[in-house]
């Protein structure tokens, strides 16, 4: 694991921004840290790169405790954040020239290619760049040294679709070479990029799993019945947002499997005529899981995951 976080706590006064956060990022993956506002994504990332000190617990990055991170480790970490403060009075060219000697593995060819691809104006002062250009600039300064880990904190926030696409394209082109840890609200973009996902809520990791597995297990279910539909009571914990319209029962199955889901539907609903299980976008999954997590429904679902019998009975 290139990043390992264990029981991480971060307290600001009386407020716990992180509450026993635990997760790991496999090497070579593109790990997306998602969660609602205030979930603790930025705090997690800033703690990982030693911008913040944890109140408790450990965060290891490149096998080093974040608190002991030295320039040697930082030479292998690229970091791009939406609110990163670059030295505005330097020009693009001057800043890249300044950074180059700090990285023993700086690749000038890659630098040139990035600058060309991202169309960075060399002579313009950084403070005169637009927000999108600044993010591009940060990216152009985070990749030429071929980092082992690239950390992106909400990199797409406030970007127009064109710039966003350019950035994603740039990242995808290099995705195989490095591990990416990305936090973002732009779930539709992450979808094509992330290989793993961690869902953060209230300073805790509610779940972490490979992207393929998540999209596989979440389905929008449309169950057409012979007669007027009603929401089963009690509702299985892994069925979310259940509602009945006419003779159709709709819900989100968060533990979908071809056979078991159908069997459960048939067991709970009489006169099932048709079951339509539709794949969900990451955004739909997020908007379904986020309120449930907020309301505590996912906590019982979590427990149920560990105890399949409880799931059945709930």
């Amino acid at each position, binding site marked *: 694991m290139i990043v390992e976080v264990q029981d991480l706590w971060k307290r600001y006064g009386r407020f716990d921004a992180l509450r026993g956060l635990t997760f790991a990022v496999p090497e070579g993956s593109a790990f997306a840290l998602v969660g609602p506002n205030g979930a603790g994504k930025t705090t997690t990332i*800033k703690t990982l*790169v*030693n*911008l*913040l000190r944890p109140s408790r617990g450990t965060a290891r990055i490149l096998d080093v405790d974040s608190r002991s991170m*030295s*320039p*040697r480790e*930082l*030479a292998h*970490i690229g*970091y791009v*954040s939406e*609110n*990163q*403060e*670059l*030295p505005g*009075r*330097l020009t693009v060219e*001057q800043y890249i020239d*300044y*950074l180059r*000697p*700090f*990285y023993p593995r700086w690749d000038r060819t890659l630098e040139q290619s990035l600058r060309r691809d991202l169309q960075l104006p060399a002579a313009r002062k950084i403070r005169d760049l637009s927000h999108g250009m600044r993010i591009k600039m*940060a990216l152009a*300064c985070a990749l030429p040294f071929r980092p082992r880990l690239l950390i992106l904190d909400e990199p797409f926030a406030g970007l127009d679709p064109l710039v966003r696409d350019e950035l994603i394209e740039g990242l995808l082109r290099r995705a195989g070479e490095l591990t990416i840890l990305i936090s973002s609200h732009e779930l539709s973009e992450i979808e094509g990029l992330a290989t793993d996902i961690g869902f953060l809520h209230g300073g805790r990791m509610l779940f972490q799993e490979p992207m393929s597995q998540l999209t596989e297990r979440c389905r929008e279910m449309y169950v057409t019945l012979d007669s007027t539909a009603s929401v089963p009571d009690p509702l299985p914990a892994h069925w979310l947002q259940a509602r009945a319209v006419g003779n159709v029962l709709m819900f989100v199955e968060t533990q979908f499997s071809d056979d078991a889901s159908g069997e459960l539907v048939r067991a709970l609903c009489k006169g099932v005529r048709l079951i339509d299980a539709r794949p969900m976008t990451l955004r739909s999954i997020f908007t379904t899981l986020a309120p449930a997590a907020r309301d505590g429904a996912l906590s019982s679902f979590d427990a149920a995951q560990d105890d399949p019998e409880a799931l059945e009975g709930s």
Partner: protein
Amino acid sequence: MMPLHILKKDWKLLWPLVAALGILHGLAALARFNAGHFLNFPSVPLALLQLLATATIVVLVVHQDPVPGVRQDWLVRPIARRDLLLAKVLFVILLVHGPWWMTDLIQGLANGFPLGQSAAAATACSFWVLLTLTLPALAFATLTATMTEAFVAALAICAIVLAFLIAPGLVGAARPTALTGFAWVPTLVREALLLASAAAVLVVQYRWRRAWAARALFATALVAGFCVPFLPWATTLRMEQLLAAGSWADHDVAVAFAPVDGGFQVSPGQGLDDVAEKPGFGPADVAAENQRRRAEGARTVFLPIRVSGLEPGSRLLADRSEVTLSQRGHVVYRGRGNDLELHATNTDGAVHHGIRVPGAVYTRVQGEPLDLQLDYSFTLFRADATYALPARDGDQRMPGVGWCVTKVDDAGTRVMFGCLQPGERPSCLTLALEHTPTRQQNPEVSLCAPDYSPYPGHVLPDALTRFSGRLPFYDPSGLVRYPVGGPQLAESRVVVTSFRPSSHFVRRVLIPAVRLQDWEPRQP
């Protein structure tokens, strides 16, 4: 290597300001050079502007890579914080202090002082500014991330400083060493505290980035530093003994109350309100001081004091005298005596020591027998060298004193004496206008500004010290007649005697059953 790389980056960003600061130093030096021995423009405000501009650039250079905060790009770059700190310190030394040092050096050379002396004075001045201003400013800058924050914090510091200047007066607290040669002790302790806290802040900030801890540390040191001057006199003297070992010696000098010498008698024609309470006062100073005393409703008594065991030619200065008046064991007044200075022409000397008593106390106890205790802290000055230069348009370089000139003022009433000296000025000088053929002298003028610090700490306005004195030879009001007047001026010279402090000692004088009213000044 990396510190230089970082320094180059900062230079690219700040060179216009560094150049402007260099020009400011150059122009200030040129203005002072043109002013010569008698500065006729607000030199100290200009020097303060130089210090302010220096501090601003120091803050700016640190803010190129601000320490507090979590958004700065440099924090996630493989930049060793040690290198960063070193780069900032190098920038300050080379690019902020360098030009200033150079202008000081050039000014010393342009005034005809030797290279070694000019360089030593420039270096001492620069070093002192580095320790007491730029390094604390560097540490201060690490506590803030933007100029706005720095400005607000600086305002807060100014408020603390103002509070320390104003509040003591409101509650009646005094700085015991103020205007004495021992003022360097609390100054040094304060600067040492500030410097130590600055070093600690730099370590805390560049190693751990604990901004609030560092801010608390800096603020505590600042407040503690400003409290130091309020330490009791005796504590300060003990600290002086520790810091400047060897300057305290036991002497055969004895100090006693000498009632046989009689009371203080004013000169013929002089009013009781025209008495010069303090040595070295000119007519204008006397009038102002007496006006102040009358406004306070205070009365001054003059006690005859005899000092024996002196070395002829030496000067005795009371750095402080504490007066305690008691009546039947109860203290009725405790305060400070007036300044006391004695030029010994013999082994014995007599002086009337002025003691100002608040009006209410005086009215109550003036006729009562009181026990009076005088606690003196003395410094003995030994004559170092004597020089003479023509009273009119004199120009002479005097080792240990400096390059001095004389000229008659525009009103034609005084000889102006002015000196330039790289580094520290002599602690004590006396001037006398002497008619060379007859050896007649006008009253001596003291240029004693005691400073017993064992280190060079001269900062303002630059590495050159300027000092001057006025020797009156004609009083247009006709009240005073001088032995050496205008007609003798062409054949007169200014005799300059420099003194150096040789030792400090304390003496206590106990006067039982004294009646204050017996020692008021009287008409002859």
